[in-house]
């Protein structure tokens, strides 16, 4: 049976569905989940995580909309292979949204733009190399 490792932090102020989305995306980005991998059904994952099925459904719908996952009718849900289908502008916008939060945090904690750039580069390389290794 396909598995996904997701850890839910109940006391976090990040909503549960968002926590699951972030972790699945991370695993796809780092190559832990590879293109064409089958993911558990909504029922299976909900039961495994002890999370409401509607929450998992919401996660899968959102990830399908973003082309991270793909539903094959009557067969199951898979890690999508063609993220390029999303227009470049939209992909950039999605990244910008996440970076905005990082920028707010950096300003609040007094971390300079230079330092932020450095950190971003490091993270980017780290994930890229993790993905290459797993391929």
């Amino acid at each position, binding site marked *: 049976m396909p598995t996904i490792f997701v850890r839910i932090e*109940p*006391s*976090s*102020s*990040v909503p*549960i569905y968002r926590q699951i989305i972030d972790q699945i995306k991370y695993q796809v980005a780092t190559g832990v989940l590879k293109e064409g991998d089958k993911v558990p059904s909504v029922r299976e994952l*909900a039961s495994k995580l*002890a999370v*409401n*099925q509607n929450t998992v459904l919401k996660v899968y719908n959102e990830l399908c909309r973003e082309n991270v996952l793909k539903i094959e009718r009557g067969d199951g849900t898979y890690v999508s292979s063609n993220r390029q289908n999303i227009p470049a502008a939209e992909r950039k916008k999605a990244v910008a949204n996440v970076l905005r939060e990082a920028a707010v945090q950096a300003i609040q904690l007094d971390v300079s733009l230079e330092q932020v750039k450095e950190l971003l580069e490091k993270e980017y390389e780290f994930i890229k190399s993790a993905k290459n290794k797993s391929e």
Partner: protein
Amino acid sequence: MGKNTIEIEGLKFAYGRDGVLKGVDLQVPEGSIFGFLGRNGAGKTTTIKLLLGLLKPDDGFCRIEGINPQKDAISVRRIVGYMAEDQQMYGWMRIEQIVKWVASFYPTWDSKFTNKLLDMLELPGKNKVKTLSKGQNSRLALLLALGHRPKVVILDDPTLGLDPIARKEFLRYVIGLLQTNGVTVFFSSHLLYEIEPVADYVAILDNGVIIKSERTFDLRESVKKVVLNTSKNDFTKIEGILDASKMEERVALTIENCSAEKINKIKDSYGGFVRVIGLNLDEIFEAYVIGNRGEATGV
């Protein structure tokens, strides 16, 4: 939205002169998992006992699947599976005996299903009830509540006293066995972090009334903490303040229905805007139950 499985209107109840429920209104949609939250002693168990016809209300009414438990408690018990808080079962019985015994009360008992459950819930049929661990005890109580294939399941603080692993396991069964089959689950708890992952809806009972009833997801999204840098003292223009605290020039307001539009308005009127913080369900619960409604800022 479809119909409501449980309907409660203006429900009042007092033990002697102490009013416990002071007019409870609540609707539980069919097929939902509904988390019923409240502090210890808020009246959760009393509400559940009224729903089952075990107590008689002083005023108001409730219905399950359209049936009034005051008039027809037997019909209610046929369609409802109930697991009491800290459920006591005869310790001298063996598991298989108690299953048989409870089965005899229900014409719709599904022995095939309960045999499967004994296996799945890892309950050794030959063991005596008094020898069971707390986890096994609650699993047995769940089995006994589900054996007659109820449409509605009422669980009164079902994970009380369980360790975190047993608790998660129990919730896993609730999702796997009940949500999958479209059963309506009404489930009380004072543990919010436990309710949030599983509940479609939550209602907060406090001081004898429901102070909030909403989709879990919407509640999470709609209550925010807004931190302002301002010397102003009057926040009466902001609607829905649940809690306010002030430290010198900094004011933290916990606000319900906190839309982007509302935040913009606050920005315009108070300036010195600092940030908007998301809250977890525990913090939201606290704001509703013990929030000062903005009085601390000195209106």
